[in-house]
């Protein structure tokens, strides 16, 4: 049974976070997720099929993603479409908050050093 506390999933790996972001934008099928991640990160993150589908599989099993029951037929090819679940939404938000907090801390420290004579 999936865990329900978003914080229990943190921190997320960069690939996982990017996948959640990509699916948050719109429900997507696997290859589409790969392209979206690649596009957003300008090619810096370019997951291999194994890494991607294993991550998708794990996220589904953990309840962060949901899969539409009926495969969508697009150009004659059946594909599974991944949606963000409400838990997934909360986890992504929590991760974003966590990262914002870290970045804030870094900024604060950088500003402190910048003020030093």
């Amino acid at each position: 049974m999936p865990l329900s506390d978003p914080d229990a999933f943190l921190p997320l790996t960069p690939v996982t976070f990017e996948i959640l972001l990509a699916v948050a934008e719109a429900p997507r099928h696997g290859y589409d997720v790969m392209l979206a991640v690649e596009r957003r990160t300008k090619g810096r993150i370019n997951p291999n099929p194994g890494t991607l589908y294993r991550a998708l599989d794990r996220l589904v099993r953990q309840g962060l993603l949901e899969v539409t029951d009926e495969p969508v037929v697009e150009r004659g090819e059946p594909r599974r479409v991944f949606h963000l679940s409400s838990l997934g939404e909360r986890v992504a938000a929590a991760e974003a908050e966590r990262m914002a907090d870290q970045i804030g801390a870094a900024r604060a420290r950088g500003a402190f050093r910048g003020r030093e004579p």
Partner: protein
Amino acid sequence: MKEIARSVQRLTKVYRILLRAYSPRFRRAYSAEMAKTFQARCVRAIEERGRPGLILWVCRAILDVAWNAPLERISTWREARGAAAGSEVPAKPGATPGDSGWVGLMQDFRFVFRLLARRPALAVTLVLTLGLGTGATTALFGIMDAALLRALPYPNADDIVLVRQSDPEFGAYGFAPPYIADLRERITGLESLAGFSSSWDLTLTGLGDPRLVVASYVTDGLFDLFGATPLMGRLFDRTEYATSGGHAVVVSRAFWERNFGTETTLGAQALTLEGEIYPIVGVLPALPMPITASIVDSNGASAEVWLPFSANPYAELRSIPVMNVVGRLPDGGTVEAVAGELDSVREALVRDYPDIGVGTTLVIDRLREVVTRDVRRTVLTLFTAAGLLLLIACVNVANMLLALSTARGQELAVRRALGAGRRRIARQLLAESLVIATLGCMVGLALGAWLTSTVLRTGVAGLPPSADVRVDLRVAGFAALLAVATTVFFGVAPALHAVRSGVLVAGGDRRATGVGRRTRNLFVAAEVALAVTLLVGAGLLERSFWNLVQVDPGFRAEGLLQIPMGLSSSGRDTPGSRRAFLDHALGALEALPGASAVAAVNRLPLGGSNVFVDVEVEGEGPAGEARSSVDRRVATPGYFDLMRIPIVAGREFGPDDLPASPIPAAIVNETFVRRRLPDGSPVGRRLRLMLRGGPGPWLTVVGVAGDVQHHGLDGSAQPEVYVPYAQASVESMVAVVHTTDSPAGFAETARKAIWTLDPNMPLDEVLGVEELLRSTVAEPRFRAVVLNGFAALALVLAAMGIYGVIAYAVERRTRETGVRVALGARPSDVVLVLVGEGVRSAAVGALIGLAGAWALGQALSPLLFEVGSTDALTFGGVSALILVVALTASYLPARRAAQVDPVDALRAD
């Protein structure tokens, strides 16, 4: 493009198989999508970075599976176990995995690496041995694949047949161009018939230096038959095929890119060939033309430009067979069925055209067979040799693995005692074999690729130019299969045997068991047998090669440079103008610093082409019976002296042998005298040659020259008649210059000198005569070198094997040896026992090997020159060599055994 789409599809299939490494649950959910993703990425990789991009992507995808599949299996397994235990918490990463499934296998692999790291020498030897065997086989498989299996890169190439005329004297040859229409009309058993000329050198001017390009004339239907479609422009149209002197040319992509650049599009470009302008109408991808020595007058190069046959100077003549006729068998059609029809076709042809040739028959062969015939034996011989080498390598690997497994008897026994099942141990052994096989395969592939590129550089003479030797996925797959099969079969089987045969039951008894020793002695015998077979084969070829090199060609090639010149171009239409040009050219060459003598001949010895004509000797009965073919050579004064061909009677041609001389002269060779003028002095006898236009004038023999090996060093001398150039104007001559400089250095000066006389003269084939002579033995040299290399490796491997087995036996029997020495045996007795064991196995192996060598010798005999296939020297020498090697390889470890201190030996157990 289609080819790329096909290979992507094939790769995707392979990828789907790889996906089986994931758990069934994961596969059901995602494998279809993953395969599609893989395919999409393949296409993208090709679009972005071409073939290298595709290769990189495929490697990445394979590594991806190798990395993610085991991890996925582990997490699935953990979850399943968690669920089984009723726990909701996923298992901790630190949980000890059992010895089932992938986790256990991963553990096995880690264990293997540790094991090999502990025995680096053994690991390196195993991997190198396997690498040598698979590498040699892979390279030879690549060559065999290119030369025999993929020889013809045409669609349904197996259905393409070659129809030829054949007569007992000249063998099979093509047809005069006009006959294509008759053949098309009369042969009903073939779907389409088309013709092409063999390679045809044409002078290309106006595009850089004047040079020769290799052209082929084609009839309509030929491009269809060979499946060629233009990249740019079009092929010839009906009018171009039909009109006499159809003016259009199609060029290859390589030719186009070299001369016009990669970016240029086809516009109004044209080529000036033999002084005439041909507009380029189309660009073809590479279309290797099927060429072998057995197709008429081929110069061995593949065409780069194609012209309609109507442009061929012989297109209208029914007397000159310059056309190869190819056809396609219909579905279900057989060569035999068409062959049955050919007799009646021939009869009909002879009725209509009595000139077609007396005594000829029509023959049909599959094009593939004709093209691969010359090279088949060489390639198969070398492939067999590589296979033998691989076998030796396998036996060696098996030997080492067996020794390893026996040595590890105690370790395995302990593991069994601790509860490891036989399956578990077998899997461990399998993992070992797989790791060794993978490493060996990688070494083998690298070696194979290197050998292949070396072979490409050296060149297998007689390899069809259409052959494209490369290490591709298929060849790599072949290598991988070999390496894995070898190690799994020879690694796991003997090890399991060791497990069963009681080594373990005895609780790790370190003394050699009878079974293990017998097996290893058997291995030694097998290795020696294979090595002897290979060594004898190599020895025979080597001796044959030496005999060939020792053949006196009948002339001295040192310091000679050949300059072939076409005399009839640039408006030299009359014999007088051609003679004047040649005189000028020879004069200009002689005046060059470094040139000491100059002469010319129509065909140089060993040049590959010869002109046969019929000859009639005066007073020798009616024509027809007394006529027979001779080699007709046309030479200038000074030719014999320059080539150092001895004049054994009479005189050489001189300045008095002029066009208008009342007594036209001839020089015959010794073979001619032996066969045709055996009685009395040949000088002063008269003969005449049957030329294309009818009988020539009566010639008086003025001299007799020594025999020259015109047709190859391994052939016998043919009867020859030389005539002076002044009295027999021909259209092309080869100037021969003797230079005191290096011929290569002199070539440039010579070219410039000729170009000042005729700037349009193509001079690409200026090269040293010695080089020419060397190239005629290139193929036997290549065979001998490769086989010798293999044999040397085989000898080293066999020696290693014998040494290994005896050293191992010595180590195992330290205690026994110690007891013997303690009981008073002299060290020499101990040495004798051990050496005797090694040599006995080797002797048995050598006997079997000699029988194998006899069989190999039979297969090799057509390649041998003046060496019997059962040459006693080779057989005896190899036997002696192998026994010396066996003796040494057994003596070294045996001596060590004899020096063991009995006390240490007894304590050792």
